């Protein structure tokens, strides 16, 4: 079994969740790498979109901006931001990836600020950008993140992007599209999904080298556990080869 780092594992697991013929809106970095890996393994027909307007480019390298010219290099379409967001709103986009400083048990995400005074934040982040839009409008939201009990918290300073809000049907009742929401949270320690009823975060599999105890101790809220809790299938050597040699040869992302 070949050696790998946590980022490589998260990217490989994320890629496996992107089936052939699906659509995914990605940002720069790991999500883009996961999508490129999926294209070069089991999903040659995966359609990658970028929020500034790029559709199905033949990516010559990792974009540094979701609006730079790489995102529509030999693309099927170089469109606009409203075009991409309306395509999501219409229900034509299956997946998206988000990141954030805080996430709670319902998959709500904070990428706006730390502190309790919005007008004078202790720490200010960029804000939603397209995150809230994609979390609201795409069918399934995924997240790749290193896990710790600060980031996985029950005390959110700010909910930037909607997960299942307060759980149960609260997301739909708020007016957000029926059947949409968080799908997978992929961390260095485990893979989580969400309970069908309560919509609380539920551990589906634990990554090699970690225990159930590790996963719970590095989470600020009580996790649910799948009845059939499994071991995460580690990156295969072929996945790693393509990721390292083809997708990210300069190790911009997997080198982090």
């Amino acid at each position, binding site marked *: 079994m070949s050696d790998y780092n946590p980022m490589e594992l998260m990217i490989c697991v994320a890629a496996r969740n992107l089936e052939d013929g699906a659509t995914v809106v990605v940002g*720069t970095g790991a999500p883009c790498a996961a999508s490129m890996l999926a294209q070069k393994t089991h999903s040659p027909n995966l359609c990658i979109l970028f929020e*500034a307007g790029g559709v199905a480019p033949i990516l010559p390298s990792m974009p540094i901006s*979701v609006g730079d*010219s790489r995102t529509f290099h030999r693309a099927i379409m170089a469109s606009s931001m*409203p075009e991409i967001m309306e395509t999501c709103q219409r229900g034509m986009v299956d997946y998206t990836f988000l990141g954030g400083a805080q996430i709670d048990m319902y998959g709500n995400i904070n990428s706006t600020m730390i502190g309790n005074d*919005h007008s004078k934040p202790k720490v200010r982040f960029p*804000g939603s*950008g*397209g995150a809230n839009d994609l979390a609201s409008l795409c069918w399934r939201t995924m997240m790749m993140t290193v896990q710790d009990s600060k980031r996985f918290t029950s005390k959110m300073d700010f909910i930037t992007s909607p997960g299942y809000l307060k759980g149960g049907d609260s997301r739909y009742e708020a007016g957000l599209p029926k059947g949409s929401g968080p799908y997978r949270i992929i961390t260095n320690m485990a893979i989580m999904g969400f309970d069908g009823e309560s919509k609380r975060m539920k551990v589906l599999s634990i990554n090699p080298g970690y225990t159930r105890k590790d996963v719970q101790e590095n989470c600020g809220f009580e996790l649910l556990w799948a009845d059939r809790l499994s071991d995460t299938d580690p990156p295969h050597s072929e996945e790693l080869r393509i990721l390292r040699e083809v997708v990210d040869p300069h190790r911009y992302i997997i080198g982090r």
Partner: protein
Amino acid sequence: MDIGAELLSGQNELFTDPDADNARLFFRTKSRAMKNKLSTAEEVVKTMISDGDYIAIGGFGANRIPTAIIHEIVRQGKKNLGFAGHTSTHDFQVLVAGECFDRCDIAYIIGLEARGLSPAARRYIESGKVKLTEWTNATLSWRIKAAAMGLSFLPARNILGTDTFRYSAAKEILCPFTGQKYAAHPALYPDFAAIHVHECDIYGNAHVYGASVSDQDLAKAAKRVVLTTEKLIHTDKIRSNPEGTFIPFWCVDAVIEVPYGSYPGNMPYEYFSDEEHLQEWLKVEKDPEEHKKFIRKQIMETKNFYEYLELNGGIEKMIKLRSIELLIDRNKGGLK
């Protein structure tokens, strides 16, 4: 339907007037004549922007940005502006250096995407000097589209149920046909917008290539619009391809020819962004004194965009950035 009680409103300030009739009264007076609109950055910023105006910048932060106008706003020391922080990155960072704005509609600010966060922008926002209203990329796109359509709002299905909504100025409404809850986003009619294009004629009929972000809507929504263009073209090129017209003349008040005008940003098919220079910005910003010196040298003490470009490598630098954009490896092959 008396469900008004259940409908929530964002609690933060709406910085602009969404009223469609007020906008119409302005647009009624806007010239529709196809006349020569050539001008200069100095003249445009002096005559088309007043302190206190609400402005928007086209492109996508460090992609296809009207750098000459952004710098001139800082150079002329415009103050108390409102700003549409719509996918703003390097443009935001430059205006922060001039402390030009005191209120901001936020979709994405402070960051330069994969390049990291701007320490200066962070200090400015965390200082509390700037009034902030939260939005999102799609929301600002739709607020601008609402204005472009001549409306006072558009319904959408994003931001509901979040603090992003709570600290916005959006309002919940119900669909009169389905009862579905929507976020109503107020139309955004900026006082001024600057957009960088690949080519346009002297009347402002423009072509843009690559992702267009929200610029077609922005050109319609803004009351006063300036285009900076990589090059001027003859109107025959517009008329020979009328389906390709990206912005029509009636939206445009002034045209400025600025070759390499998106530097240090990326201009699709022309030149890539100058990543070394953008990293230099982030580096010097760590020390406020260094930052002041840097801004003085790069902007305040340069006469115009060309001196700034010259200072950072001039045309030779642009040839390098063009190679990167076109994926040409000049170390490989070529005639010996």
